[in-house]
Each structure stands twice: as structure tokens, then as C-alpha cells.
């Protein structure tokens, strides 16, 4: 293709023989991330890379008791150190906060009592980190021990007296939240089922293990009365609100900046003690103050996957119809509520598709315990019950003599249908996902037919693409975007969304490039800064692509229309162009693609996008637009019916190919195929990255990861080995081959049809491996993680049973 000759705003040169490209560069291409090269070359500044002049360092004194009253704090020796500038305690920041407005149950620093080993008690600002560490060592805290509550059974029986009440926010005992919901008559359906399975499952606690530890810098401008907090967070907006509340500043005197984040996975989706502490310490000292967690502190901050004990009953008819599912779930929440109220709902509400059931009931109870607080980890609340349910589907299929894939297809809740709990499904590619993994794994020839020790297993899941309601009730957009054109040919797009490595900045740039016809490097994304960007609620609930995407689309299309109409007017007016348009060019005759603006009826008439922007600026004045997205009201017509309701649901299927070593009990996962319906892959590389990363994370939870706490009297409530040496995430050598198979079933509610891809593809990894183990050696494992010891025990029981039978 030859370039047209110079074109400029003052006149048009007609160039023949130029062909319009078929598609813009933005959408569906396997382009690299907009920040990829910066990360690869080390140009990116993460929070801890930022050094401000005169900056002090903060360390937090943490509780060495699981549950104790604070009797006395002696700061004298620490304050006497030269270079210690300030120390704050819970008395200085008494206002409670919490990510969910109904469960504000934590303070920046403990005021009266500590609730787990690692709870923050005091914060020091000193010249250096080493000095801050020394000061922390010199602070003497006197405790009076209370009764530690370390598991849900104990929690269920305690909390009525002060000694055993973990958190005073609990209205009854130690319960954060109990949800009981029932759809249809599940007991009757169970009684009438042809086959029923009834098992107790245990999902262990796991944590996010993002490689970047939490880090925050407070920078108070005394003259302006303006506090800036730079933080590695996924939720600048919620942090902004809570900082204002706890520090007693108006929101318009606080700016939150979120630098590029080195992994989050839900572990940075609410405010943490360090953010309030650096803010307060900066206000006291008038100097910037930084706090960087140690890896151990990251483990104490936690907010990871809740341990759940799940009693599941499932019944099916002879034809394979799943007629009833009933669950009773105890959730071990840790010391604070975090998102726990939502967790209690999600544990039941997100299970009803893509494989549905006719009748459904669940009771889930989240308890407070004296351990680091659990919260949202990738696949919040729903990964655990998915593990139980998908194993039971496998069991039902076996009892019925059905292929487990066929059983799932039989119970598909598909397009346009509502789940038993009232969730409206848009698109759903369950069949396509199952077919994709079946084909790739040669399921028909291999499932049930491999020699003992080797097996295949399948599992499926669905997940939300954002939630219909914001965390705090309001009528404003859940995501806002502003777009501004520059006469240089660059486009600036402003969004409060947080790129935490998932690629939201890249998605923004791609949408912008697609809509305005510019190349992606001409788009400047400005994100994660509450001063510069309109609000986006944050990177959680797999909401960003859908919600931010819609907002970006609206803003970009408004701008595009301005350019189109300005150009149409210009081409009708300009002498040379008029010869081509005959004065008949309408805005829709103008296309912005491939770096140029084209006259669709005769593509020999074209200008560069830069010139088009100049023409538009001359026509309209400075050109910009805003866009916003807000969900329509959706969900079941009952209390809690909106929780778990989403504009669009993704769908996933996994097949795992597993070998079991009977001698050692080790499971060797050879390969995992994951098919995921993301509606439309705006960037297939990013989607595949999310699918692989999710599957990897799920595999880690099957094989290795566990938040273990000391059981004996001395070690009560102590996290065993809070380090990446003792909390083992798989290395590349331990990780199976993973093949990502994208399925695209565009959803009417998604931008370009897109749905989520960041969390759904984790869920069914775990039951797929469990089901493959059964195919390999015929044992069912109900307790995660599947350590070699547990596998060998199950095999020994199997051998004993066989001996007895013989």
C-alpha cells in the first residue's frame, strides 16, 4: 500500500489507489500490552521504587498474641531513639472502617485488643527502615490474654462473652454473616431423586502470593492541606473514601495514586493498615512516609481464600437431570469481616450455572476467628463450593452410567435462561467449551480407558463479569472514562481503573484505537489516579473489561462522531474534497481506521487521523468526551437476590490429565486443557494469559498451597512459615503444561460482546484434577490440598476395602 501524499487541514490532496484496511488495529489482535516493554526494560516504577525527598520510613509493631487485651504500650525507649520522628497507636486513629459499609469492624491500628498474631498495634516513622525496625523492637506492649477462637466449630459455640468474642461487630456469637436461601423444594426433590450423593468437603485457606508486597507512601502538603497517598492497591476509589473517613480529611483534600501493581489477585482490594498509617504519620511529621510490608506482613494482611467445610447433597434422576442440590457451608473468616458478607452469599449464589439444578438450597455461615482475615481471592467465595459440586456431578454421572460431559450438557442453563436462583444468563458457551476440551484431550478415546495410575477428569464453572451493585449504594456510574484528542494526533484516555497486571490499560488503549482509528502507541492511558481520572470502582469481581469497556466505548464513540461530523462538513466545504463528495458527505460516510479518516464512498479521499483531529478541533474547539457505565437493575426478587447477579456470565471447562504415583502418593499433572467463553477476546494474548494464570493458581491450590496454623497450645494461631519458602507456590518445574482454548460467545451486555476472563478459569481446575485422580486410581479425595500423604492414605483405605471385600 502506498502512502497518500501530504494531507493537511488546509486542503486535501487526492491520492488514488489507496485501499482501506479491513479492520482497525485495536480489537481482537494479539498485540502486546501497552506497558509490556516498560516492565520488561525496568522503566516501570512500582510503589517501592518511588523515593521522595526527605522521605521517612514506617514500620508497624504487630501483635504476638492471637487474642488479647492491650493493657499498656510503652513507647518511651523507641521515642528516645535519635531519628524516630513519630509513633502512632490505635488511640490516634479510632475511626473504624471496612470495605463493606455494613461491616466496618477494623481500625488502622488496634485500640483495645488484638485479634490475631500479626494485627497492627503501633506505627513508627523514622529516618531509615532499619531504625524503624529497631524502634518497633523497643516498643513494649503488655497484653492480657483472652480466649483464642481458632476454628469454626469453636467459633459456633463461643462469642457470647467478652473473652471469646473475636470481633464486637458480630451480632450473634462469632458470626459475621449467615445466609440461608432456598429455591424450590430441595428436600422433596432429594427424596424423589433416583441417585443421591452426600459428602463433606474441606477447602483449605490459601493466599494470593502476589510477588509485589503491599507498599504505600503518604505525602502531606502542609501548605495546601492536601494528602497524597501512593499505594499498590486495586481499589483507589474505596481507599480514597476510607482515608477521608479515618483520617478526618474531606475527600477533596486527598489524592490516591496507584502506580503499576505487581500482582494483586484480590489481595489488594481493600484498604490496609499501612495506607492509613503513612497518611497519618505524614500529616504529623510534614514529611513523606513510606511503608513496605515484609513478605511475612503480606501473609498477615492476607484476605485470601476462606477455608470452608462444605456438606453437599446432590440428587439426580435416571435421565441425568440434577433435581436437587443442598449445601451447608461453614466459613472460617479470620479476625475481620473484609468482604465476608459477600463471601457468605457467593458461596451459594454463584453455583447455579452453567450446570443447573431444579431445586437448590444453601446455608452458609461465616465466622470470626483469631487468624488473619480472609477475603476475596481470584474466584471469590465460589471456588470452594465449585470444588465440591463438580466432584459430586462426577459421582452422579458414574452412578448413572453417564459420561460426565453429557451429564453437564444435559443440565445446561443456557442463553436467555434464568438460573434456579434468578440469575439471567446472556451468552454461555458450555457446549463449545466442553467440546473444545474433549477434542483437545482426546476424551472419547482416553477417559475411563487409561491404565491404572493415569486418568482424565472434567469440570466446568461460570463466573460473573462484575456485580450489578456497587459496594456502597449510589446512583453514579460504576465506571467513568474521559477522552481528549490532541492536535498532535495523540489521544488521552482517563480512567480510574487499576491495571494490576491484568492489562486493563491495554484494553482501554485497544478500544480507543479501535474506535478512533489510531495506532495503539498514539493512545496515552492515564489511570489509577483519583485526581486525574473519573471514578472506576476498582479491579475486582472481574468487572473492569465489561464496565470500563462500556464507559470507554461511550466516550470514544462520542468523540468519533464529533470527528466524523467535523470532517463531513469540511469535505463538503473544501474545494478539492467537494469534487469527490459533491457536498453529500454525511458523518456516517466518514470512517476512522488504520490511522486515517476515509470517505467511505470513495476511499481515494482520506486524511491522516492527525489532520482529522485538527479539522475537528477547528470545528468544535477542544475535543473531548466522557462516558460512563452503570448496570441496569438485575437479579432475583428476594433479599440477597442481587448478590451474584451480573450483567454477563462467563463459562469454563477444564480437562486434567493426571498420573498418580501410588508409591509416594504424589500426583503428577501432565496437562490441563482449559476452554473459556469470554464472550469476545478483545486481546487473545491477554485472555490466554488470564486462563493460564488462573489454571496455574488453581493447580497450586490442589497440589501445594495451604495456610497452615499451629495446632498445639504454644503455637495457637501462629501461621506456620509465613514465607515463600514454607508457603510453596509451584515453580515452573512443578507446573503442568496448560493449553488455553478461547471460546467466543458474544454477550449482548458486553462491550463488543466481551465477558470476564480473569477469575472464571480458576474454578474448575481443582475439581478437574480431583476427578482425574478418581479416573486414574479410583479414589475420591475430599480434602484439599491433595498432599502425597493424603493420597497415600486414601489408596491404603481403598486397598483395605478391597481386601475386606475379597
Amino acid at each position, binding site marked *: 500500500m502506498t502512502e497518500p501524499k501530504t494531507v493537511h487541514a488546509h486542503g486535501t490532496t487526492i491520492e488514488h489507489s489507496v485501499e482501506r484496511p479491513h479492520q482497525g488495529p485495536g480489537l481482537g489482535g494479539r498485540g502486546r500490552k501497552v506497558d509490556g516493554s516498560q516492565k520488561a526494560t525496568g522503566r516501570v516504577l512500582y510503589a517501592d521504587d518511588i523515593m521522595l525527598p526527605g522521605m521517612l520510613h514506617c514500620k508497624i509493631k504487630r501483635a504476638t498474641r492471637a487474642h488479647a487485651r492491650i493493657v499498656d504500650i510503652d513507647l518511651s525507649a523507641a521515642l528516645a531513639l535519635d531519628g524516630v520522628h513519630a509513633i502512632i497507636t490505635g488511640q490516634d486513629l479510632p475511626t473504624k472502617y471496612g470495605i463493606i459499609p455494613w461491616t466496618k469492624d477494623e481500625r488502622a491500628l488496634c485500640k483495645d485488643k488484638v485479634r490475631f498474631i500479626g494485627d497492627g498495634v503501633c506505627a513508627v516513622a523514622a529516618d531509615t527502615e*532499619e531504625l524503624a525496625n529497631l524502634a518497633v523492637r523497643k516498643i513494649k506492649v503488655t497484653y492480657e490474654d483472652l480466649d483464642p477462637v481458632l476454628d469454626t466449630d469453636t467459633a459456633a459455640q463461643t462469642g457470647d462473652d467478652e473473652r471469646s468474642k473475636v470481633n464486637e461487630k458480630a451480632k450473634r456469637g462469632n458470626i459475621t454473616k449467615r445466609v440461608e436461601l432456598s429455591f424450590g423444594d430441595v428436600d422433596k426433590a432429594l427424596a424423589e431423586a433416583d441417585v443421591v450423593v452426600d459428602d463433606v468437603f474441606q477447602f483449605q485457606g490459601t493466599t494470593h502470593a502476589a510477588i509485589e508486597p503491599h507498599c504505600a507512601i503518604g505525602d502531606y502538603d502542609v501548605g495546601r492541606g492536601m494528602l497524597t497517598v501512593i499505594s499498590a492497591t486495586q481499589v483507589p476509589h474505596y481507599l480514597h473514601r476510607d482515608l477521608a473517613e479515618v483520617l478526618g480529611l474531606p475527600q477533596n483534600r486527598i489524592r490516591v495514586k496507584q502506580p503499576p501493581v505487581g500482582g494483586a489477585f484480590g489481595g489488594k482490594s481493600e484498604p490496609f493498615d499501612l495506607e492509613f498509617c503513612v497518611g497519618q504519620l505524614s500529616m504529623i511529621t510534614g514529611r513523606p512516609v513510606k511503608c513496605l510490608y515484609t513478605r*511475612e506482613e503480606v501473609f498477615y494482611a492476607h484476605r485470601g481464600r476462606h477455608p470452608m467445610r462444605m456438606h453437599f447433597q446432590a440428587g439426580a434422576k435416571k435421565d441425568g437431570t440434577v433435581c436437587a442440590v443442598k449445601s451447608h457451608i461453614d466459613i472460617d473468616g479470620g479476625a475481620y469481616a473484609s468482604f465476608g458478607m459477600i463471601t457468605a452469599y457467593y458461596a451459594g449464589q454463584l453455583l447455579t450455572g452453567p450446570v443447573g439444578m431444579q431445586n437448590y438450597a444453601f446455608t452458609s455461615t461465616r465466622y470470626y476467628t483469631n487468624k488473619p482475615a480472609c477475603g476475596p481471592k481470584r474466584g471469590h467465595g465460589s471456588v470452594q463450593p465449585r470444588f465440591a459440586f463438580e466432584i459430586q456431578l462426577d459421582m452422579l454421572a458414574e452412578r448413572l452410567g453417564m459420561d460426565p460431559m453429557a451429564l453437564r450438557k444435559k443440565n445446561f442453563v443456557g442463553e436467555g435462561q434464568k438460573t434456579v436462583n434468578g440469575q439471567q444468563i446472556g451468552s454461555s458457551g458450555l457446549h463449545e467449551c466442553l467440546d473444545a476440551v474433549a477434542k483437545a484431550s482426546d476424551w472419547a478415546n482416553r477417559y475411563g480407558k487409561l491404565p491404572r495410575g493415569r486418568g482424565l477428569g472434567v469440570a466446568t464453572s461460570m463466573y460473573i463479569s462484575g456485580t450489578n451493585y456497587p459496594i456502597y449504594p449510589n446512583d453514579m456510574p460504576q465506571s467513568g472514562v474521559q477522552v481528549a484528542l490532541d492536535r498532535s494526533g495523540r489521544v488521552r484516555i482517563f480512567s480510574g481503573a487499576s491495571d494490576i497486571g491484568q492489562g486493563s490499560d491495554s484494553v482501554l488503549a485497544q478500544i480507543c484505537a479501535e474506535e478512533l482509528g489510531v495506532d495503539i502507541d498514539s493512545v496515552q492511558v492515564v489511570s489509577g489516579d483519583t485526581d486525574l481520572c473519573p471514578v472506576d470502582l476498582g479491579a475486582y469481581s472481574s468487572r473492569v473489561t465489561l464496565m470500563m469497556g462500556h464507559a470507554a466505548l461511550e466516550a470514544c464513540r462520542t468523540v468519533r462522531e464529533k470527528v466524523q461530523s467535523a470532517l463531513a462538513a469540511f469535505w463538503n466545504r473544501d474545494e478539492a474534497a467537494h469534487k469527490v463528495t459533491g457536498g453529500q458527505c454525511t458523518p456516517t460516510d466518514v470512517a476512522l481506521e488504520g490511522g486515517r479518516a476515509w470517505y467511505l464512498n470513495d476511499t481515494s479521499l482520506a486524511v491522516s487521523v492527525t489532520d482529522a483531529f485538527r479539522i475537528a478541533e477547528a470545528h468544535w474547539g477542544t475535543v473531548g468526551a466522557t462516558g460512563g457505565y452503570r448496570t441496569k437493575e438485575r437479579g432475583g426478587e428476594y433479599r440477597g437476590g442481587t448478590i451474584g447477579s451480573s450483567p454477563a456470565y462467563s463459562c469454563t471447562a477444564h480437562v486434567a490429565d493426571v498420573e498418580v504415583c501410588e508409591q509416594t502418593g504424589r500426583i503428577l499433572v501432565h496437562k490441563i486443557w482449559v476452554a473459556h467463553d469470554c464472550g469476545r477476546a478483545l486481546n487473545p494474548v491477554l485472555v490466554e494469559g488470564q486462563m493460564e494464570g488462573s489454571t496455574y493458581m488453581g493447580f497450586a491450590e490442589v497440589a501445594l498451597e495451604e495456610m497452615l496454623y499451629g495446632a498445639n497450645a504454644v503455637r495457637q494461631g501462629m501461621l506456620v512459615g509465613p514465607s515463600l519458602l514454607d508457603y510453596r507456590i509451584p515453580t515452573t518445574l512443578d507446573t503442568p503444561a496448560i493449553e488455553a482454548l478461547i471460546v467466543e460467545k458474544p454477550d449482548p451486555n458486553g462491550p463488543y460482546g466481551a465477558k470476564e476472563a480473569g477469575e472464571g478459569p480458576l474454578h474448575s481446575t481443582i475439581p478437574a484434577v480431583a476427578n482425574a485422580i478418581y479416573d486414574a486410581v479410583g479414589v475420591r479425595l475430599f480434602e484439599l490440598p491433595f498432599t502425597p500423604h493424603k493420597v497415600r492414605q486414601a489408596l491404603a483405605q481403598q486397598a483395605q476395602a478391597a481386601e475386606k471385600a475379597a
Partner: protein
Amino acid sequence: MLRLDPVRVEMPATAEEAVALLHQHQEGARLVAGGTDIVPNLKHNLLEPVVLVHLGRAQNALSGVQDDGDHLVIGAMTTLHDISVNPLVTAHCPALADAAHHVAGPQLRRMGTIGGNLCLDTRCLYYNQTYFWREALGFCLKKDGTQCHVVAGGKKCVAAASNDGATALLALGADLTILGPDGSRTLPLADFYVADGVRNTVLARDEMVTSVRVKKAGPHRREGFAKLRHREAIDYPMLSVAVALHVDDNDIVEAATLIVNALAARPKSVRLDFCVGKKWDAALDEDIAARAHKQCTPMTNICDDPGWRKDMVPVYVHKALRKARA
């Protein structure tokens, strides 16, 4: 992240200068070779030296593998990576090369040295933790406390030797050259370790290991190494097993050594006298594995699952024997 407390660092140019510094400071001094063990331990406040004697400048003189007739002499500062790929070591002491290759991960093997590996501090779930964690625990008798959390009422530290290099070199019957203020001495590695988790070697505070001397395999020594760990990289051993069998032309065993490490402070030598004069066959492998199973008793010092680890002893002895046969 965890910070190092400020500490003075000396960088002597020679081993003699290093020893002089050690002699001068005694308990206050600690030697740093690759630093892969001591740096995390310092960050955990497990050691509180006044001075670190860093051997970086002496590394060249203390590194390398020499062919000394029927022996190899390996400088103490030779990195584990270099040992794992050295043609002399892979040809004449394959179990040592294999053991070195199984330590930690590539980066750590390029820093960690064989001398450092042999002098590795013992490890325990209740010891290799931060000061904060240990304070919350109430400390332990290896450091800052009086109580053992592995053996209730235990008065002797049972932290585990976790050095794969020691496992292999013990099986191969290596000798150490040790430099002290009064000159060098030679010590069989078998006499180097003692059953005290607080300090599990006989090395004096003013001594350092300068080299290791190990006999080449020759036609009659068969050797193998196997390691049980959680992951395929990074992790310290849950079991580290090395076997060396001397057999005649008819596969009759003349001598046999089996070392199982990562159990307690001192690497365990499983008595295999019964093998001498017997033919090395599958049945003998079974007997050796059964003997090891009986004699090895893992504790909860490095892993919460001693029962499973005990069951894995014969499995990994078999693995080492299979490698020896290959």
C-alpha cells in the same frame, strides 16, 4: 522486605587473613562465602555477629576442582553450580554432581559454595523464622529460648542438617582440609558432624574449611543420590539420600555406605555391614531399603508429616540405588 541490621564487613584477600580475623573476633565473627544461607539467617536475627568475614576476594584461590591421581580436591569456594557441571566431578563422583545439582535453584547454586554447604546451619520450622515470629512463639532452645517445639521437654536441639553436599560426600568418604590459626589439619568428613542442632560441626570459631578431598569412583564404586522435596526446585530436602557400594567384578559387595540426611542435626549413617560379601542384586536392595526404613525416624523439625517422610525413606533409598546401578 526484611532488612539486614547494620554490621561491619571485612574482606580479607587470603584464607590466612580470614582465619586471623576469625581468631581475633571468635564468637563475634561469621564467615560469608556465597551468603545464601547466612544472609537470610542474619535477616531473621538468628546470628548477631560483630563482624562478617567475607571471602569474596579469596574466592579464586579457594575455587576449582583438581585431579590428584585417584582423588579429586575441590576448593571450598567452588560453587555448587560449578561442581554440578564439572567434568571431573560428573565423571568421577557423579553422586556429588547430582547432589550439588539438586540444591535450591539455579541462582542460588551459582552463589552457594560447597564449603558453605558443608557448614550449613541446621534448619527447623521453629528456628528459620523472623524475630517477630519466634517472639510470638516464645523462641526455642536453638536461639533466644529454652523450649524445644519439636520434642516436648527436649533438652537437645534436633534441628536438621539440610545439606545435600554433605550427604553425598559422606557416602563417598571425603576428607576436609581445615585451616586454623596454627595451620592446616585434615579431618574425615565422617568426624565433622555432631548430634547437636545448635552447632552441628566440630569446626572451631577460628577455623575454616579450605578444601574437600574425595576419592574417585574407579571401576568398583557405584554411587547414587536421591532427594525428597516438596517442589522440583528451591526446597530444602525432606530426605537427602546417598549410597556408595564398592563391589568386585562379580558384584559382590566389599563395602557399603548409606547416608540419609535431613533427619536430625547429624547426617544419619545407616549401618550396612550386613551387605559385605553378599551379591548386589534386587533382593539386597530390598534389604538395604528395609534397614534404612527401620533406622531412620523423621521428626517434625522440618515438615509436619514425619509418618509420610518415614515411608518415603525406602522409596528414596531405592531411587539412589537405581541411580547407582545405572
